[in-house]
């Protein structure tokens, strides 16, 4: 491919990268992303697939342990989730796919081979829109995860809880040309995995891991440079930093007239460097062989069509649904970062209908962006929040039955999904007093107070600013429940009478 045809978008690359870009070098990046699928059980055994915080080796079966005579039995749910994620990647679903054995010896690989799809993957070519950059997906294949080693002193401990967890490995084409591109692509994959309901995509628990292939060449060069592969990056930040570092390293080598070696490198978070692991000459021969214990996977059109028909809404669909609200880009992205709230907002809009429901939906959007997604609340569980309750609360607010602080208090109480806003407002005594009879009594009381005398005479003298003080006093007296505009009206009338 030619490097002239770089996507014409503003580069958010680091200053160092810009410096090299001036020299005329351009990085070319392809990414292999491993996504753990959120199945109940493992890819080939009945063992629990959720090993978060579990005791080592407590989530294994004789199959994961590779006892003699054990055979893999394919988990249909994993196939379903792979197809869903494939559809989210705009990819061709291969109706016939097959498993192969990839051999290598390591204590975290109990069978001495990994069951993967080398020759006939389940997901064919597709593409991802990474914030305006179209990144092509070469293919995606199902495979099982390996276990984990912990090195303690001179010994190594093997934990096979993760061994056999289903992975979908998504292999991109080399369509990215900056650290920012790489990060945007990884973020989009995460979002798609979550929205497709295929993975928890939690990086802290290693639900997504990235191998980044990067080469550099002069812009416009006909051939790509020699690539290095940086293995096992487990955060977006490390993807970004590793690309920046590796780009600079390779450019420096080329500038010195040296060659870039084709090799596998690791990323040291502490050192902020990539370090060599294996060169091409030392590369393993995986001795791929068709897996005779697992028959080919043959999907029916109907099976795929059913998944398509029941596909959860992807980010694009949510965006389209919210378009009429005229939200800022940052608010849209913030809400999209939270699957549950995004789904609730879309449901709100579907229930209310636009444009009639615009005002109510905007109130709810504001709550999401400013209250629920604030630092103190963002980590809370929003599953129980009921859409009907949200709408009821927003309507009460629009009708001025509640002031904004009261609405916020009730909103947070709605998170457990137990009570409706009206009941809560009454229980918490937060309903605004708009009843003029009741308010007049309070206003009379406030106007009679000695500390009000100055304000009253100021207003009589035409200084209407002083009314604010009196409204404040009424609010205080009513413990915040008074409707301030009604109160202001009554004060004005009483003083001017």
């Amino acid at each position, binding site marked *: 491919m030619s490097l002239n045809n770089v996507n014409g978008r503003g580069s958010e690359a680091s200053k160092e990268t810009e410096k090299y870009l001036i020299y005329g070098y351009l990085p070319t990046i392809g990414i292999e992303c491993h996504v753990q699928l959120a199945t109940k059980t493992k890819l080939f055994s009945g063992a629990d697939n959720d090993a978060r915080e579990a005791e080592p080796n407590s989530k294994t079966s*004789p199959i994961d*342990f*590779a*006892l*003699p*005579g*054990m*055979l*893999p*039995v*394919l988990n249909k749910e994993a196939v379903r989730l792979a197809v869903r994620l494939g559809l989210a990647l705009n990819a061709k679903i291969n109706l016939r796919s097959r498993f192969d*054995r990839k*051999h290598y*010896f390591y*204590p975290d690989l*109990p*069978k*001495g*081979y990994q069951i993967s799809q080398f020759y006939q993957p389940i997901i064919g070519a597709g593409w991802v829109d990474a914030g305006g950059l179209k990144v092509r997906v070469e293919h995606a294949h199902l495979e099982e995860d390996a276990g984990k080693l912990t090195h303690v002193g001179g010994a*190594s401990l*093997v934990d096979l809880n993760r061994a056999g967890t289903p992975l979908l490995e998504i292999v991109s084409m080399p369509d990215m040309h900056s650290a920012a591109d790489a990060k945007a692509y990884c973020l989009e994959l995460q979002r798609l995995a979550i929205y497709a309901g295929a993975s928890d995509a939690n990086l802290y628990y290693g639900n997504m891991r990235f191998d980044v292939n990067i080469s550099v060449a002069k812009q416009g060069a006909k051939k790509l440079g020699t690539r290095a592969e940086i293995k096992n990056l487990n955060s977006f930040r490390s993807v970004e930093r590793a690309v920046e570092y590796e780009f600079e390293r390779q450019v420096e080598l080329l500038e010195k007239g040296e060659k870039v070696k084709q090799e596998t490198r690791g990323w040291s978070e502490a050192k902020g460097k990539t370090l060599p692991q294996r060169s091409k000459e030392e590369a393993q*021969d995986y*001795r*791929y*062989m068709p897996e*005779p*214990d*697992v*028959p080919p996977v043959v999907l029916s059109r109907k099976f795929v069509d059913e998944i398509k028909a029941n596909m959860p809404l992807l980010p694009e669909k949510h965006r389209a649904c919210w378009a009429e609200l005229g939200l800022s880009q940052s608010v849209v992205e913030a809400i999209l970062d939270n699957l549950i709230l995004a789904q609730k907002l879309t449901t709100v809009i579907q229930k209310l209908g636009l444009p009639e429901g615009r005002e109510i939906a905007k109130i709810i959007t504001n709550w999401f962006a400013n209250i629920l997604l604030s630092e103190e609340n963002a980590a809370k569980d929003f599953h129980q929040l009921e859409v009907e309750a949200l709408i009821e609360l927003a309507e009460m607010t629009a009708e001025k039955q509640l002031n904004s602080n009261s609405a916020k208090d009730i909103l947070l109480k709605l998170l457990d999904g137990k009570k409706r806003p009206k009941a809560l407002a009454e229980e918490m005594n937060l309903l605004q007093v708009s009843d003029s009879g009741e308010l007049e009594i309070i206003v009379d009381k406030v106007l009679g107070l000695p500390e009000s005398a100055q304000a009253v005479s100021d207003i009589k003298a035409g200084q209407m600013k002083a009314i604010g003080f009196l409204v404040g006093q009424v609010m205080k007296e009513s413990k915040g429940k008074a409707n301030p505009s009604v109160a202001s009206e009554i004060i004005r009338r009483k003083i001017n009478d």
Partner: protein
Amino acid sequence: MMSENWRKIPEIVRDVRSGAVSAVENVERALAVAECCKNYNIFVSITKERALQRATEIDQKVKAGVAVGELAGVPYVLKDNFLDFGAKTTASAKMLEGFVAPLQATAVKKLEAAGAICIGKSNLDAFAHGGSTENSFFGVTKNSKDTRRVAGGSSGGSAVAVALGVAPFALGTDTGGSIRQPAAFNGVIGVKPTFGSVSRFGVVAMASSTDTIGCFATNAFDARLVMNVMSGKDSWDSTTIDNDFMRHTSRKLRIGVILDFMTDDVDREVLTIVEKYVKKLDKKGYDVKTIKMSTLKYALPVYYVVVPAEVASNLARYDGIRYGHRARVAKTLPEIYGHSRDEGFMPENKRRVLIGNFVLSSGFFDAYYLKAQKVRTLIIEEYRKAFAKFDVLLCPTTPTPAFKIGEKTDDPVKMYLEDVMTVPPSLAGLPAVSVPAGRTKSGLDVGVQLIGARGSDAVILTLAEQMEDYGEQ
């Protein structure tokens, strides 16, 4: 060593059910014969206590009037590559010495549910690699007719156990002839079913695409009874199919004698005995013709590319990390792998691992493994065509009768040539049985192989049964 023959399985079961002969008596008899036959080295381990306990349970059920299964109180011998809960399972390899099975193979589970009682685990070529039971870490098993000769293999122990009357039936595994060849060498019937008929779950894997579970018996009816109990779809093995072994066929069978295996390369006496068997078929009124099959000569080289590849893969799990043998001297990870596998495997295991890894390695994969798989497809295709004309194909089971112990151990290729007639059906996943056809002048057993189309196990077993009746007339 001779012992009174066991009666047919339905008769044994009838006596257990009526209380005429108890299950305990059957087990005690089997154990006594096993004890007498010690010098044949049939067993890796005897499961006496468990067997007696299970027999007592069955007898108690009978006394209490509780229904017992169709194999109630029938003792059997289990090849030592089957996992039998709580029993040692070594696959006759040092690698698994002392390994106690934490679960039950599906085949064993089904047999036990029907009331059969395992009395011991029989010797085999380590990891079932071999055709003589000389490659066992626990010594050579001897032929039932001549102790200077091999039992055949890899299921040698099970074949000799049935031949000497230790038990009415025994289980084996057959990847390229490991049931049929020792059956032929010991004058018993040996069944290798259609691939997938019996679950491989809980059986130490040799080559996953050709491994089958089968049995030895003294007669065809017992064999089909046992196969029928074990067979059927199993959720633990995705390659399993349903297969009815009891189905009878009444139509006039068309039998094709494979001329490519009736040549001068075959031992003179073997040829004569098989020809006699063919004549008997003709006389009995079967439609007997000959057939030439040009691809079968490639089966052996194909087999010794494909099977070692799968063997190398399936043996990769024996790494000394989680279970099995770990070398004492090993300190580093490469040493644990290297020394443990060096010490735990027999020379034949290592040979196959090396061949397998070679044919799978980059640069050689296309020339060996891929080419072999293509030829395999041609062989399958030629069988398909042949079965359009014939119901059963026939040839000797082996080119020679049992050979002398040590005769072929120095020349692996000579040893592999013993499999030349048994590997073709294995590559094609076809059912094949070896039935006793007669004896040589020196008293060695000769077997004839009956091969059927996929799923037609009942057809070849029906033929075997009809020929037994004929022989008795």
